[in-house]
């Protein structure tokens, strides 16, 4: 634990919570022979091929239109950032190993095994330049879910020990300590107590039986601790029987982002087990995009059967509570634009929830041009924000987002994802930009009526 | 004489070969007047839909002159309503059409008396003149 921390101290001063740039990069992990890496990559590519991925990998027309949807390509015109090109190795493995004509591809050598050089090159394409935002999946005339495939391709990369240094360290720390930022249960408890005092709000902790299990992301705990208080206020106002748990509080899932299905499952199971233990009927996920994907849509599949409880993103919970009158908010006199977290809106299907909440707040809502499901990504999703060497590229890409936001001329910029928020904060600092991103949940918490 | 002027505006050039052929005839008339160059068109070399040939014939109409020839079957040589444009039809002894032509010329060659025939005719005439007595003269004088 300490070794991890020692080698990669947290950069607490930065506008995002991350590590200081490593003095020596280790973008190749472990000490496998080259051949073994290639084998691992191939094997873990192959494990992902099912009838669904197969149809996707077989269906590509090479029309190249996904390039026009990808912020990395749009901003750089670098053809390597064409989304489907990022999957070239994955495709190659599929055609050779599992496709209907795999025998011929192997027999005649039409598709070779991937090489270590290719894998190293593709590390940049599969990690630094893909936020798994899924915009490309919407433009594809064949309807191929490219983003979903990228997540799977990362499994091979991870197992071959070929992922970016910081992402590997972060994921490893998450696996070892339970939190990518090294938030131990004790530390979490400390922060919760601090917030309860600071904001004078009651925050139940480790209650044995509760209807609702609330969880947080490390980013919030570390950098936006007021989120803890905001969550508590809202749940209290709704009169929920709820609790935080020290045995299941971390919503982020770096196993998923980095491509380690084992770690992904571990993190997910922690939350599931905690919820089952207290007999929860609902897990309320924090303002975090990928947590939603990990638990709401992939959680049951990790569990191997339907979950015995519901899963909601906080925006969904708030929308529901406001729509049913469980909580009420005061009207807020300001103009607002909303940045959709890709995994919650575009890929998660909860696009409407945030809009319902905003409607209840009575603000002058200014939708971005092609906002909602076609929103430009913040550029930091999919773990990209952790990768230091990707900073210049990420900043370049952020320009699209800035234009989209500025065009609305709204007073305030809100979102519902701490990861988006830190990536905005970092880019804001970089560009010295006027807009400071706020949290939708915090706005609701601050304007609750009849607060308990 | 068979003189029948066509009603110009009423010529229906419905389809097929009639219109292009009329155009060709106009150009042939240009050549005849400007360069003194005659043209002959073999209608058998063109595919006509049923009724199209009749349509062409109607379009060209009948002119002032019509001649009949009786050599190896009947032939009709007729000037159309457009002077210089001649319609020729050759039949065999069974009366079947063996050739149909449009000639754009001042006089079709076949109307001219041919030197060979003139020579043969002269010989015949001289022969009967020499061999006949007063009966011939009497007959000729009738």
């Amino acid at each position, binding site marked *: 634990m300490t070794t991890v921390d020692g080698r990669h101290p947290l950069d607490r001063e930065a506008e995002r919570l991350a590590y200081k740039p490593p003095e020596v990069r280790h973008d190749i992990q472990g000490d496998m022979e080259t051949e073994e890496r290639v084998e691992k990559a191939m094997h873990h590519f192959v494990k992902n091929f099912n009838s669904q991925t197969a149809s996707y990998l077989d269906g590509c027309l090479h029309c190249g239109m996904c390039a026009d949807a990808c912020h990395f390509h749009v901003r750089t015109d670098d053809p390597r950032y064409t989304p489907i090109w990022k999957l070239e190795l994955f495709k190659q493995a599929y055609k050779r190993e*599992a496709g209907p004509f795999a025998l011929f591809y192997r027999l005649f050598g039409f598709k070779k095994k991937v090489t270590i050089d290719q894998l190293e090159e593709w590390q940049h394409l599969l990690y630094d330049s893909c936020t798994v935002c899924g915009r490309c999946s919407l433009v594809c*005339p*064949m309807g191929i*879910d490219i983003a979903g495939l990228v997540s799977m391709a990362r499994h091979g990369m991870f197992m071959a020990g070929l992922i970016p240094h910081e992402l590997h360290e972060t994921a490893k720390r998450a696996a070892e300590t339970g939190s990518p930022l090294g938030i131990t249960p004790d530390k979490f408890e400390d922060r919760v107590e601090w917030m309860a005092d600071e904001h004078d709000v009651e925050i139940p902790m480790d209650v044995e039986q509760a209807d609702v299990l609330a969880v947080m992301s490390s980013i919030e705990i570390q950098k936006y601790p007021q989120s803890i208080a905001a969550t508590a206020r809202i749940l209290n106002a709704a009169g929920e029987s709820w609790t935080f748990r020290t045995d299941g509080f971390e919503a982020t899932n770096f196993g998923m982002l980095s491509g380690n299905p084992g770690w992904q499952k571990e993190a997910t199971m922690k939350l599931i087990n905690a919820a089952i233990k207290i007999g929860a009927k609902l897990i309320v996920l924090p303002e975090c995009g990928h947590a939603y994907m990990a638990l709401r849509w992939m959680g049951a599949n990790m569990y191997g059967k339907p979950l015995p409880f519901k899963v909601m993103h906080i925006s969904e919970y708030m929308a529901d509570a406001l729509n049913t009158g469980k909580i009420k908010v005061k009207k807020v006199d300001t103009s607002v634009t909303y940045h959709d977290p890709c995994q919650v809106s575009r890929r998660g*299907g909860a696009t409407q929830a945030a809009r319902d909440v905003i409607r209840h707040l009575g603000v002058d809502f200014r939708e971005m041009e092609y906002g909602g499901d076609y929103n430009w990504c913040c550029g930091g999703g999919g773990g990209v924000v952790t990768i230091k060497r990707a900073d210049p590229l990420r900043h370049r890409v952020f320009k699209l987002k800035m234009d989209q936001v500025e065009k609305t001329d709204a007073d305030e910029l809100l979102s519902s994802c701490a990861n988006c928020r830190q990536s905005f904060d970092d880019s804001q600092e970089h560009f010295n930009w006027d807009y400071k991103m706020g949290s939708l949940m915090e706005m609701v918490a601050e304007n609750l009526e009849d607060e308990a | 004489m068979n003189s029948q002027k066509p009603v110009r505006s009423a010529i229906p050039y419905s389809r097929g070969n009639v219109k292009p052929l009329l155009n060709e005839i106009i150009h042939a008339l240009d050549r005849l007047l400007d360069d003194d160059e005659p043209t002959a068109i073999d209608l058998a070399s063109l595919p006509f839909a049923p009724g199209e040939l009749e349509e062409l014939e109607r379009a060209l109409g009948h002119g002032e002159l019509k001649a009949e020839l009786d050599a190896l079957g009947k032939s009709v040589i007729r000037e159309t309503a457009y002077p210089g444009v001649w319609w020729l039809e050759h039949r065999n002894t069974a009366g079947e059409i063996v050739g149909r032509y449009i000639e754009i010329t001042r006089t079709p060659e076949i109307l001219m008396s041919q030197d060979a025939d003139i020579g043969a005719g002269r010989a015949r005439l001289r022969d009967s003149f020499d061999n006949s007595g007063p009966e011939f003269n009497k007959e000729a004088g009738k």
Partner: protein
Amino acid sequence: MDLLDFARGPALQVAAYILVAGVLWRLVGIIMLKEKPEFSEPRKPGGFMAALKVIYTRSFTAAPFKRATLYPKMLAYVLHIGFFVVIFLFVPHIVFFEGFLGFDWPGLPNNLIYLSGVAAVVAGIALLVRRLTHPVLKLISNFDDYFSWFVTLLPIVTGLMMPVRMGVRYETLLAIHILSVAVLMIWLPFGKLGHTFLVFVTRGTTGMVFERRGAKT
């Protein structure tokens, strides 16, 4: 047996066998791979109707992508529609289909067919030029793309040559035309032209996966 008899008979016959076998080979080979289990609680029903919905909706470009993809999409539409018109609305082709389907449908006058064919070829050439010059397409294209382009355009071009002829005998051209169709039929299941049937699978899959999430499809 002359070339035309060969083309109309054995060539088409074998091509049809390969087409049918190849399409099923590829489809079954994909569908019979392991199933991805899905236990998450759906937001919306999804299912077959969702598949149908996306099969339909992905035929059109979503508004945000319209400007960026206008040119290739337009060409692709012209190519597809032109190809469709030529294949299914040219009377001799209808007669061909009637030969084994047993029913026919009205066709279009030939000049409209020629127009569609020429438009399809022009669009095809423009798409090839784009593929050869556009940095993205240059990078991602492979043999399949170029060969599939070739075998797709070949029947249209040979078909369009029939009225023009250019000194080649009609029956020879017809034989070449039919052979080019046979080549297309033989290649279709194996290369990217498989999108003719895979499009229903890929779009349908996405429809079912994302519609049940209530997400954008």
